[in-house]
């Protein structure tokens, strides 16, 4: 198709936003209590979603709904088949997760089983934000000449964990979990959504 010169429209087009989806799961208290019990030592090794447990089934159902909404939001219909991986984590005092992404995953995310307890230190700087999750702008270096107020200035978006909150983001997006500084464990499920079958084929 040959290109045609386009009459200009007066617009400011927001190209390539990085989508982050958040869903606060209703009636999560009972499942969260069960997941906290599962996270207690010895915990669950491997994929949480291979565990036959009512709370795990409940969480899986919500993730299925959320991923379906994601594909709807980005105009991928019908949604491709995908598989779910989950790692149940209980971060203890001084634990953190450094910057990384989920190589090979279409989506990644976290489900917050509990809200982390406040830090048990009183000397922290105001910018330390313990037990928070930071997402980093994938346009590395874009903030170099950013002006406070423009969408390039803040290279990170920091999430405040809320019990029952399910958050998804693209698998390539780098994120980190700030250090947890409370004795009560910070329980979450780290998620990987991988496409199943050949990309671009709709349904495998």
């Amino acid at each position, binding site marked *: *198709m*040959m*290109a*045609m*010169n*386009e*009459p*200009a*429209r*007066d617009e*400011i*087009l*927001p*190209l*390539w*936003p*990085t*989508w*982050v*989806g*958040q*869903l*606060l799961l*209703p*009636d999560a208290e*009972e*499942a969260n209590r069960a997941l906290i019990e599962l996270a207690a030592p010895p915990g669950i090794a491997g994929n949480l979603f291979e565990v036959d447990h*009512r709370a795990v089934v*409940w969480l899986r*159902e*919500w993730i299925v709904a*959320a991923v379906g*909404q994601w594909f709807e*939001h*980005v*105009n*991928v*219909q019908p949604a*491709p088949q995908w598989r779910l991986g989950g790692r149940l984590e209980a971060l203890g005092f001084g634990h953190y997760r450094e910057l990384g992404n989920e190589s090979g*995953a*279409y989506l990644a995310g976290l489900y917050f089983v509990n809200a982390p307890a406040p830090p048990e230190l009183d000397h922290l700087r105001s910018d330390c934000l313990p037990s928070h999750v930071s997402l980093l702008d*994938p*346009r590395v*270096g*874009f903030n*170099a*000449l950013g*002006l406070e*107020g*423009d*969408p*390039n200035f803040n290279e990170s*978006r920091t999430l405040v964990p809320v019990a029952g909150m*399910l958050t998804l983001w*693209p*698998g*390539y997006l780098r994120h980190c979990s700030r250090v947890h500084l409370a004795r009560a464990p910070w329980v979450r499920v780290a998620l990987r959504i991988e*496409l199943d079958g050949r*990309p671009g084929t*709709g349904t495998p």
Partner: protein
Amino acid sequence: MSAAGAAPRMAFSGVWPTLLVSRRLPGFEKPTAGLAAHILEQEARETDYTARYQQQSFFSGKRPSVHWLKDQIDQTTTAFLRHVGIERALSWTLFGWYNTNRYGDHHAPHTHPRAYLSGTYYVRVPPAPASVDDPKARPGCISFYDPRTGANMITVGPEPDAHAAHVVCPSAGTLMMWPSQVQHYVHPNLSEEHRVTISFNLIMDPAVYWPVGKRGL
């Protein structure tokens, strides 16, 4: 403990958009004719001036058409800054140059380091000739590339992340501006008519970043 059938909806936030400004300048015909005449005069005096663009100082010209374009760029910049929520007064400097693309001329993918915004005003954009038989050709158009390199690597196809290039085929009278970090490519001109544009870098004055009183070690 069961997931409800009528599920609540996930809230989506589109963070870190890359903003592309497009504006058709009102009353562009007369000043654009003046700009074209000015550029033709310079072309007659200089050779390869587009390649030596850093030697140009387009906006130092005293012609009314040059002033008109500079005013339009300044106004558009102010509107852009308001759009993103910046109301405070800022100061900047514009560095401009013209480009003449003859048949086959193009601009390889590049960025504009050390500038806040870059842009182009389209003076003359010849239509693609019917003789072009490459269905993938976009002669004279400009492509902008997703700065999230690799974001399209695991995509299904219809979603926006799958499309790493955004192609625009502007017409004369259009002003486009974008963050200077965005890589872009100007496709070859495949017309015997010249494609004429004026490009610029908008550089914020240093005090914008480090206001007086906050400088120093």
